[in-house]
C-alpha cells in the first residue's frame, strides 16, 4: 500500500479543475442564498447550461472558444429569467420548487434520444475543447512539483479555471461591498423592509439570480474542459454537493466556497484512498471495494451534520451573519 500516493492524490485535488469548477458554482450559490436569501436548488442546471451551451456551440455551430462561452452566458441569463419571472414575486419556497424541477427537466431534455444529434443523448459530447488546448500558452513539458506535477495541458486548464475563480471572487467581493450588495443583503433579512425604503426588490432578486447563475454556468464550462459532457453529471445530487460546499465554507462569504470546495474534494479523495487501502490490506473486512464510493459520501454527510451542530455559520462565516436559518 503506497500511502504517499493516497495523500498525493488527495493533495492534488487542492488545485484540480474540478475543485475550481465546484468552487465557482458554490460562489454563485453564495450570491443566491448566502447574500440574497434565494433558495436555488437548480445550480446543476446552470452548470449543465455551461457544459452543453459551450460544447454544442463548438461542435454543432462551429463557434470559437470565446463565442461559445458568450453563447452559454446568454443562455444562462435567459434561463435565470425563465426561472425568476414567475417565481421571484412569490414566497421564497416557490423558487426552490421551480429550480429543482427545471433542473430535472433540463437534464431529461438534453439526454433524450430525439436530440441525439445536438446533445449526444445519453452518451453526451466530447472533442469540443480542441481550440481551448490549441490556445494553450504553455509549451509541452512537465510543470510544478509533487504532488501537483502536471502536463502543459493540465496546467493550462488549471490556470484557466482558477483565474476564473479569482475573477469571480473579485467581482462578488466588489458587488457585495457596494450599495448594491447592501440592498441584496437587506432583501435576505426582510424584503418588505427593503421595499418600504423604495427599492425594487424583484429587480434585485432577478439580478442576483442572473449573477449567481452566470457563475454556475462558467463553472459548468470549467468542469467539462478536461472531460466529456455527460448528462448523468447534472443530477440533483450535484446541486446538493454545491450546497454542501457553500455551507461548509460559509454561505455569506466569498472565500468560504473556495475552501469548502478544496476540503470537499480532498476529503473525498482521502476517504476513498484510505478506505481502499484498508480494504486491500484486510484491515476492513466488512466493506467491499465497490461499497467505498457510497461510504465516503456517508462520511461527508456525517461531517456536515457535525458542522451544522458545532459551526452552523460554516468555517469562514461570521456566527452572527448567517446560520442555517432558512
Amino acid at each position, binding site marked *: 500500500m503506497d500511502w504517499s500516493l493516497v495523500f498525493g492524490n488527495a493533495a492534488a485535488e487542492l488545485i484540480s479543475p474540478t475543485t475550481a469548477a465546484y468552487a465557482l458554482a458554490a460562489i454563485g450559490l453564495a450570491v443566491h442564498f448566502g447574500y440574497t436569501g434565494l433558495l436555488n436548488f437548480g445550480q446543476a442546471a446552470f452548470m449543465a447550461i455551461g457544459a452543453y451551451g459551450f460544447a454544442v456551440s463548438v461542435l454543432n455551430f462551429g463557434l470559437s472558444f470565446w463565442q461559445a462561452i458568450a453563447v452559454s452566458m446568454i443562455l444562462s441569463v435567459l434561463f435565470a429569467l425563465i426561472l425568476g419571472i414567475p417565481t421571484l414575486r412569490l414566497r421564497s419556497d416557490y423558487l426552490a420548487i421551480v429550480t429543482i424541477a427545471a433542473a430535472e427537466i433540463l437534464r431529461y431534455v438534453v439526454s433524450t434520444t430525439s436530440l441525439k444529434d445536438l446533445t449526444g443523448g445519453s452518451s453526451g459530447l466530447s472533442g469540443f475543447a480542441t481550440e481551448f488546448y490549441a490556445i494553450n500558452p504553455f509549451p509541452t513539458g512537465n510543470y510544478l512539483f509533487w504532488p501537483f506535477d502536471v502536463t502543459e495541458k493540465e496546467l493550462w486548464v488549471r490556470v484557466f479555471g482558477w483565474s476564473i475563480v479569482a475573477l469571480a471572487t473579485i467581482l462578488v467581493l466588489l458587488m457585495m461591498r457596494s450599495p448594491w450588495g447592501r440592498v441584496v443583503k437587506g432583501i435576505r433579512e426582510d424584503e418588505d423592509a427593503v421595499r*418600504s425604503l423604495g427599492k425594487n426588490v424583484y429587480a434585485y432578486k432577478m439580478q442576483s439570480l442572473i449573477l449567481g447563475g452566470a457563475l454556475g454556468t462558467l463553472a459548468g464550462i470549467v468542469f467539462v474542459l478536461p472531460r466529456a459532457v455527460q448528462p448523468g453529471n447534472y443530477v440533483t445530487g450535484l446541486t446538493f454537493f454545491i450546497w454542501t460546499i457553500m455551507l461548509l465554507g460559509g454561505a455569506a462569504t466569498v472565500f468560504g466556497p473556495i475552501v469548502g470546495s478544496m476540503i470537499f474534494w480532498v476529503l473525498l479523495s482521502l476517504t476513498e484512498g484510505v478506505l481502499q487501502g484498508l480494504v486491500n490490506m484486510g484491515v476492513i473486512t466488512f466493506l467491499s471495494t465497490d461499497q467505498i464510493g457510497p461510504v465516503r459520501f456517508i462520511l461527508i454527510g456525517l461531517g456536515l451534520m457535525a458542522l451544522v451542530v458545532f459551526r452552523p455559520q460554516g468555517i469562514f462565516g461570521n456566527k*452572527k451573519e448567517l446560520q442555517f436559518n432558512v
Partner: protein
Amino acid sequence: MSNQISVGDASPGCQKVDPILVADNVSRQFGGLTAVDVAHVEIPRGKITALIGPNGAGKTTLFNLLTGFDKPTTGTWTFEGKNLAGVASYKVARLGMIRTFQLTKSLSMLSVIENMRLGAQKQAGERFLAALIRPLWRAAENRITEQAEELLKRFKLDAKRDDFAASLSGGQRKLLEMARALMAEPKLVMLDEPMAGVNPALTQSLLDHIKDLKSNGTTVLFVEHDMHMVRHISDWVIVMAEGRIVAEGPPAQVMKDQAVIDAYLGAHADIDLGTVSIKIAKDDN
C-alpha cells in the same frame, strides 16, 4: 368649532384646506371580515396627524393599503395629486411616502449604520453595473454616511453604529426603523406605533424628533395607543373603529367626542384599551 386644518367643521371624512393624501372608498375584506371601510379621508399637509382606535380597528391594514403593501377590495387614493391605487410599494416610497411597521423590521444581520444607509434614496451604487465602479458612488456614500451618523446621534443610537441590528433592544429597533425611514427624507412619514416598547426615558426626545420633522416641513401620520402622546404632539386626530372613521378633529375636541369614548369603552375594550381609557379619564380630570 373652527380650526386651520379642515374646511368648515371637523367631522369624519371632512375636507382639508391642504391635503397631501386623499383616499376614497378604500375597503379591504378578509373573507367575511371587513377590516377597512373608509368612505373618504384626507391627511393634512405639514401637520402631525394621529390615527387612533382600538385594536383590530384596521389602522395597520389601512397603512398597508395606502403604501401598496396590500391590495384593497375597492378604492382609490392620491398622494400629492398622483393616483396611487395599484402602484407598487417601492414606487410609493420613492414618491416620498415612507412607512414603518408595527412589528419592527430591522435588518438584523446588517449593522446599524448599514441599515441607515439603506434608507437613502438615489444612491447610484445600488444599480447593478454602477456598483462595480466605486468613483460613481463614493461621494454619495460619504454624504449618506454623514447624514446617517447625524440621525443616529439624534436617536441616541450612535454608540451602536457598527453593531448588528440584531443586538438592539426592541425599543432601539423601533428607533432605528424610524431613523432609517427618515434617511429617505420623506414628504409623508407613516409610523405604525412608533412608541411601542421604547424606553420611557427616550419617549420625550422621540416626541421632539417628531415635532422637528414637522418644523422641517414633513407631514407625519402615526398610529399610537398612548393618548398622552397623541394629545401632546398631534395637530389632528382621526379615530377608526371597526374599519370606519368614526371621528376626526383637533385632539382636545376628539377626546371629548362621544363616538370616541364609545369606540374605546364599547364592546371592544380589552387589556390594551383598558390602559388607554384610564388615560383618557385621567386627562379629562
